[in-house]
């Protein structure tokens, strides 16, 4: 499998690890921004292979985790209405809103469908002219362009029964907010490679310079992540703080001009709430005024929603790297992947779920794995 297996090669990984071990002289906290990177780190056990001086803080880059509760409640409300076909990516179905999730809405008779692209939702709108088709448009700069395209096409075709429930978020304002937070521990960022493949890297040099923080554009396979860590540690140890691109096979400085043009046409930036963190100014996108009629929040009046997060959930502090998941009192007792209090315990990319899986081991794992001789 070209471009995947090569980037999981154990021998090359060993060399990168050696280099990191040889370079590091004191503790550094690095934040990987994207949930996909967190997933890969846990999936491959990368965090256990790094020197103990290198701490990876799992950032707020899991779209499932940071989508505000209020918007999830709006989704649940709209999805419950007769005549609505509510379309979503699969992993949003299990995210708890206030009291229930989209799976439960479906069990109660709502027409909730898993699609794999907003264009599939658009096709459903064409096939069902007497139904309202709503697509749950969440995610970072990566998932935004296809959603913009769907709205663009709907407008062009005059598909009045299609709308988008939008909660897009942007990485650079989140980095800004994390660096400005009191007690910020992050000393370097592994920027999200896929986001940069769309947006390019032009937004980052100013951030790196002003906050004196290295930003390394990093991919998702194990070797990508190790290379990102290696470059970040090298910068930190040398006292540098610049933007480096460690994901050159996918990212060019100017990003994807066609995708950016589509984003500029359909969306406009807006303040956006991040679940567990709060409102970050200018950190999201909403539909531009001329596409307002395709905004599900505009089309369906969903006012008067009062949201309620479980009081014991401290995912906000976890998402900012201020609290390790296992330091939360509810961790592993009241809050598990089976009974999540917050979104960080739901998504496999969420920091709490990732910690839950690893921590349950209690460090007794490695020896017996060597023993097998029959092969």
């Amino acid at each position, binding site marked *: 499998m070209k471009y995947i297996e090569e980037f999981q090669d154990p021998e090359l990984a060993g060399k990168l690890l050696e280099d990191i071990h040889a370079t590091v002289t004191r503790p550094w906290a690095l934040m990987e921004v994207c949930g996909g990177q967190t997933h890969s780190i846990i999936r491959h056990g990368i965090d256990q292979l790094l020197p103990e001086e290198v701490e990876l803080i799992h950032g707020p880059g899991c779209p499932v985790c940071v989508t505000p509760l209020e918007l999830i409640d709006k989704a649940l409300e709209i999805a419950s209405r007769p005549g609505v076909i509510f379309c979503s990516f699969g*992993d949003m179905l299990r995210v708890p809103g206030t009291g229930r999730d989209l799976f439960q809405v479906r069990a109660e008779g709502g027409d909730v469908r898993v699609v794999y692209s907003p264009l599939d939702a658009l096709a459903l709108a064409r096939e069902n002219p007497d139904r309202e088709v709503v697509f749950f448009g969440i995610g970072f700069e990566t998932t935004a362009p296809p959603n913009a395209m769907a709205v663009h096409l709907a407008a062009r075709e005059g598909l009045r029964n299609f709308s988008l429930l939008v909660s897009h978020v942007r990485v650079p304002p989140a980095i800004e907010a994390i660096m400005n937070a009191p007690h910020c521990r992050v000393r370097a960022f592994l920027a999200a490679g896929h986001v940069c493949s769309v947006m390019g890297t032009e937004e980052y040099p100013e951030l790196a310079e002003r906050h004196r923080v290295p930003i390394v554009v990093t991919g998702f396979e194990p070797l990508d992540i190790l290379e990102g860590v290696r470059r970040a540690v090298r910068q930190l140890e040398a006292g540098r703080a610049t933007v480096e691109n460690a994901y050159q096979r996918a990212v060019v400085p100017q990003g994807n001009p066609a995708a950016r043009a589509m984003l500029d046409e359909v969306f406009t930036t807006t303040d956006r709430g991040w679940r567990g963190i709060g409102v970050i100014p200018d950190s999201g996108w909403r539909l531009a005024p001329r596409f307002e009629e395709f905004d599900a929040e505009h089309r369906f009046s969903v006012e008067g929603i009062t949201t309620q997060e479980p009081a014991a959930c401290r995912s906000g502090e976890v998402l900012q790297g201020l609290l390790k998941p296992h330091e939360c009192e509810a961790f592993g007792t009241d809050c598990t992947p089976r009974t999540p209090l917050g979104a960080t315990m739901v998504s496999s990319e969420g920091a709490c779920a990732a910690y839950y899986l690893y921590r349950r081991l209690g460090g007794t794992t490695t020896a017996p794995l060597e023993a097998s001789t029959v092969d």
Partner: protein
Amino acid sequence: MTSIEAVGPTAGGDPGAPEAPVGDRAAPDPSGWTCPAPLRGHERIVMGHGGGGALSAELVEQVFAPAFGGPALSSLADSAAVEVGGARLAFSTDSFVVRPLFFPGGSIGDLAVNGTVNDLAMSGARPAYLSCGFILEEGVELGTVTRIAEALGAAARTAGVEVATGDTKVVEAGRGDGVYLNTAGIGLIPDGVDIRPQRAAPGDVVIVSGPVGAHGVAVLSRRAGLEFEVGIESDCAALNSLVAAMLAVTDELHVLRDPTRGGVAAALNEIAAAASVGVALRERAVPVPEQVAAACAMLGLDPLYVANEGKLLAFVPRAEADAVLAAMRAHPLGAQAAVIGECVEDHPGMVVARTGLGGTRVVDPPLGEQLPRIC
């Protein structure tokens, strides 16, 4: 300057909610929370209850087992062992609601035979007779039913079992999904054979009969909205002849399991839990076809959790492992059999994988449906 306003659960929230005093953090009181924790209790059936994971297990343990309560049910294995007139019989039933009805490499008819035959074979039984119930939706084309019946008959002949009794019901249009099938089967357990999950013991070698994930990916590739060309067929096959070949070299097979729903991960977790043993998996040793790995990488799925319909996992004492492996490799359905790990005393009830890079991760039981990830 950008800053983070805390609006999360640790500060603010619904002003009407009783606020947990800071001093109470050590002992959060669930009864004080104003909203029920999500997913904690289900008033209705959700899709996850049929996913073969933790929710399915809960349904069986909390609703079905207490209601039925017979001793034969207590093992909760894929088939029950019962004594009738001195003969030890394996008895099993399975229902089939697959969509689409026809997929690369098979159909619901093949599944209905092989699924039940394999459930019987996993206890070492020689499957003999099947029953078959058709639940048809008004309006289904007769040609479709004929094709399914023919596939079912052919699969039964291949497996060497006879469909001895059957039933047909028709439900009104809109109240079914085309065709649902149920089969039940009985088979004779040979003397001296005692194969069940509880017999897994530290020191056992874990063998898989061939590359995993083909069935799940083949079906997914034909599912509405996700058609992709993967060039892979379902591995759907009856495993009773392979089991017979293994039993020909030793009676001492401890556990056999076909990793269907929830894949290898679910099957190994069930065995680890049933026998209170740990399973140490070597991830790189698990054979995964390139197309399956590619499709999983694209969809964000883990091949260990993808369904198989013609593979088995065997727990075999180390002393017997070479002979069993040789017997498997001499059989067409076990030609690519491989040792993927072993049974250990450590981490009882848990499956822990050594990753390709040398890290470890816990392979958790699937919660319900595996959901394609957003990014």
